[in-house]
């Protein structure tokens, strides 16, 4: 029996190949008959769907509650303004001006609690949507898609991960960076794959991701993409830090061209399928060991 596992595919630097790895791993596990769900957590720029043809099963709007002021009840006491920790309520006492700036609101509800005059009600504000696509009979892709112009993708990401339910294997294609959206994604993971490239920028961002994962006590390993471009510093670093090197993917114009068209390397060059299968088995083994 396979134990359930959630794997996040992440990177500090953008464009290192997170989606490339996620989609090929998803495809490989699909071919093996695994009960697998891919969650595209890069809600600002979701792309994974381009690699599969899926039928939209359901779509959920993700909203947050933002305050609406009833000026006929408002006494301009300013308590809501004082309670708001995000400076989202603009208040001028003497001019009797009070205004909610929806784009700064985090939907915490503090202003509603603050108001003693029943002048604040709440309305739903759309942040984005979570779409579930059936890719094969057994597998689905869940996409977090933030509405353009919204400030933070975090709520949409959280909702998408929740939607991933009970699949045996959950793959999470993470947003780049190491700030909030990244943390929210990897916090849910049992194992993290960091995808990097052997350049000074790639290495610098990899180090930052590693430092973050250490504080979160998450097991992780590294995939080096475009392995023949750049230099060897990243290998020296992995060796020194005792970080498992999970896979090397060379830079190759054919691979780049397959990816550019929204197609899967593992489909075009089936020998890669066994590489990704080994990658998964290796991760299960490493995760099992880190758990004991």
């Amino acid at each position, binding site marked *: 029996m396979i134990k359930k596992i959630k794997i996040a595919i992440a990177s500090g630097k953008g464009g290192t190949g997170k989606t490339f790895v996620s989609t090929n791993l998803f495809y490989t596990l699909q071919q093996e008959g695994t009960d697998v769900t891919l969650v595209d957590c890069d809600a*600002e*720029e979701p*792309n994974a769907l381009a690699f599969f043809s899926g039928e939209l099963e359901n779509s959920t709007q993700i909203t947050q509650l933002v305050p609406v002021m009833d000026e006929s009840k408002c006494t301009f006491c300013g308590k809501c303004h004082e309670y708001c*920790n995000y400076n989202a309520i603009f208040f001028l006492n003497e001019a009797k001006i009070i205004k909610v700036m929806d784009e700064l609101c985090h939907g915490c*509800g503090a202003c509603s*609690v603050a108001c003693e005059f029943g002048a604040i009600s709440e309305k739903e504000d759309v942040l984005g949507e979570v779409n579930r696509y059936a890719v094969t009979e057994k597998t689905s892709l869940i996409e977090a898609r933030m509405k353009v112009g919204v400030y933070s993708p975090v709520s949409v990401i959280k909702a998408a991960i929740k939607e991933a339910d009970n699949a045996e294997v959950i793959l999470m294609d993470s947003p780049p*960076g190491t700030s909030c959206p990244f943390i929210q994604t990897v916090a849910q993971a049992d194992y993290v794959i960091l995808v990097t490239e052997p350049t*000074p920028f790639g290495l610098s961002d990899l180090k*930052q991701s590693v430092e973050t994962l250490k504080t979160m006590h998450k097991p992780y390993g590294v995939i080096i993409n475009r392995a023949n471009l750049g230099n060897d510093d990243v290998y020296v670093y992995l060796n020194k830090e005792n970080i498992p090197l999970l896979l090397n993917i060379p830079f190759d114009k054919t691979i780049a061209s397959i990816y550019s068209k929204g197609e899967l390397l593992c489909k075009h060059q089936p020998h890669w399928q066994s590489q990704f299968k080994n990658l998964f088995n290796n991760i299960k083994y490493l995760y099992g060991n880190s758990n004991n």
Partner: protein
Amino acid sequence: MEIAIISGKGGTGKSSISAAFATLSQQVVLADCDVDAANLYILFNPTHEEEQIFVSGQKAVIDYNKCRNCGSCLDTCRFEAISLSDGEIVISDILCDGCKLCSRICPFEAINMVNEDKSKMYTGSFRNGKMVYGRLSPGEENSGKLVNMVRNKAKQLSKDHQLETIIIDGPPGIGCSAISTITGVDHVVIVTEPTISGLHDMKRALEITSNFKLKTWVIVNKFDLNTDLTHQIESYCQQRNISVVGKFPFDRLVVDAMVNCKSVIEFAPDSEVAKMIRESYSAITHIDSKQIH
């Protein structure tokens, strides 16, 4: 003049192109606003002249000497950050959004707010002028505010040192830090690549720049990796009256330049790609390319 370079999709070559632009004309202010993964300091090794702390937000912390486990805070938290574990109230560091509501309503004043102050902004000089960059500490948020701080500093440096041009290297994505990066700039350059993802992400980035009515240019980097998609990008831009101001081929020189801690303009000034970058810059800024070295 402020020129912001963004991309939507990560890894299209934003920073390499920013670095090239920053080393073209003589003296500039370079603002690295990819505060989540600031990288240009690696190439330019700026002097360390000033360091400022950035408070990105707050987190709620329980004082267990005062907490009576009454549970009032449990129901008020909308971020699912507070839970009961073995009969004890626990606040998740990761889920806490810092709204302070729990701290305000706690009848025993048992919840304190602690500043998140590990993020920093650095200022210094580099070979082509002044440089300012922010580094957001892992897991911290409000990157948009840090971007604003970096940009304000850059504007001040531009004034103090009479450096006319500010080059801003932006973050990937289209969230708050990207929006803060482009608000009110004179030119936005979107660097894309001929992949399905690159095209999709460029469209979303263009939505943002057109919402803000900003003068926008597109550069297709590594255009030769898929010429069909390059055509698609070009015709999409043409329909919307956006000028594609450069199409650069994939060239190992760009990676080799980075490995040598140089911009491609410095590393291979006579190369074809360096020439193309000069021409694009000249088209954007209306500075005669003969005057750009």
